[in-house]
């Protein structure tokens, strides 16, 4: 059990976006979060690296433990949390600097300035996302010149460079075509050997293809959380069944 929430509620001002969410996420698995648009998937994901802290008037109650420690406790090191829990965003947000500097960004933030070490980290991280061979001669080019799929790979490499434990992915393939999507999915399956991955998707097929566990959300509630097999073949809740059989959403 690497992440555990208990009675998690989240309010944007007066609007309650998460309602009493209880879940346990296991190490080295891919956990998919599915549900119709606006049900709170991104909000839940952003709880795990405290990205919601950036938004004004957000109130959170309940407990969120990562490695048995309460990440919202005042003594918890937020910066260390962000390093430990990386996040990939819906739209690939490659920075408008060189490919090399993108990957070296995190290590530099963490104080690594030795050129040789940086080169090593960049090469290793790019290799881990199968990007190194195709762009090794263009490391000095702007990252904005890459295709959408390669940008998303680069963003993942940027996270891997600071050696996180958990990867949060918020609809990482929604800006990609089906072929690129397939490739990123292969990459995720490869990455789960070393990392715990939580992926938000409103694409059920995707969750079925790659997730081990799946949680189904509706209007801020976690309706059902179980193994992917169980969710997609034999869901307990009627609403889950209706969603996966395409009745709404």
């Amino acid at each position: 059990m690497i992440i555990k929430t208990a009675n998690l509620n989240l309010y944007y001002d007066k609007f309650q976006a998460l309602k009493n969410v209880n879940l346990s996420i296991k190490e080295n698995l891919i956990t998919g979060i599915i549900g119709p648009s606006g049900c709170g998937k991104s909000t839940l994901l952003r709880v795990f690296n405290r990205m919601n802290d950036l938004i004004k008037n957000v109130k959170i109650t309940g407990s969120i433990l990562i490695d048995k420690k309460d990440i919202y406790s005042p003594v918890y090191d937020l910066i260390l949390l962000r390093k430990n829990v990386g996040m990939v965003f819906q739209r690939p947000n490659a920075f408008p600097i060189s490919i090399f500097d993108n990957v070296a960004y995190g290590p530099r933030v963490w104080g690594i300035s030795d050129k040789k070490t940086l080169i090593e980290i960049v090469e290793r991280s790019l290799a881990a996302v199968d990007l190194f061979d195709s762009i090794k001669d263009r490391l000095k080019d702007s990252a904005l010149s890459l295709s959408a799929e390669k940008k998303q790979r680069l963003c993942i490499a940027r996270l891997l460079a600071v050696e996180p434990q958990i990867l949060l992915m918020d609809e990482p393939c929604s800006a990609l075509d089906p072929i690129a999507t397939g490739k990123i999915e292969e990459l995720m399956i490869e990455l789960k050997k070393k990392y715990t991955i939580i992926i938000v998707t409103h694409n059920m097929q995707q969750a079925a293809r790659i997730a081990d566990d799946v949680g189904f959300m509706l209007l801020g509630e976690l309706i059902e959380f179980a193994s992917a097999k169980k969710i997609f073949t034999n869901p307990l809740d009627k609403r889950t069944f209706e969603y996966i059989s395409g009745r709404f959403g």
Partner: protein
Amino acid sequence: MKDKIAEKLLLFIAFSAILSLLLITFFIFQQGIPLIFKVGLSNFFSTHWAPTRGNFGILSMIIGSLMVTAGALVVGIPFGLACAIFLAEFSSPPIQKTLKPIIELLAGIPSVVYGFIGIVILVPFIREHFGGPGFSVLAASIILGIMILPTIVSISYDALLAVPNTYREGSYAVGATKWQTVVMLLLPAARSGIVAGIILGMGRAIGETMAVIMIAGNALKIPHSMLDSVRTLTSTLALELGYATGDHRAALFACGSFLFLIIILLNIIAIKITGRK
């Protein structure tokens, strides 16, 4: 029918604005350029300015203009950038909404007021604490630095605001602090806008006349220190055009053409950098 008339009228007004710009340009060059050919480039770019005796060297004024402009940038860039960063990244919307208009208001203060403040406060201060006449490169630099703040602040601020939030989130997502995000990511990402702001500020500093005449001392020599008095191109134009005749007058127009070219060049560079029209 009414629309047609309004359209024609607006078109006419727009064209007359452009036309008057063209006419001014033509007039300045037509008055000034022939003199440069007449006396030769080596005379025109020498340091000896005695236009009633055939010496038309504007080099010491060019150096003067460059020195006060460089000084203004030394003052204006750090303060301007710090302001812009504070406003865009570290302050809440109500503070932004109050402070930004106030800074932009600085641009609306007439330059004679800046010159006046310079004479009353800055010049005596420099004379007493650093020596020299007080009317100096230093005084002009500081006042000009303040005068270009609004340009640098508001353009850099807009450039920082234009950096998409997803970049900030991406930076926080690897554990960067706010300050690291500003220095390592936002400033590079907003670089072109910031540079454009600086260049436009530079154009303002070079072109500023009244405040500079009042506090720079206007001595016709190449200054050797920041405490020396200095005469800029614009000061020379304003001080001498009233009584100049003949070649002297033409020489001032030649100065004007030179200034005009520099400022057009700076604006073109600024437009090129930001890629905006």
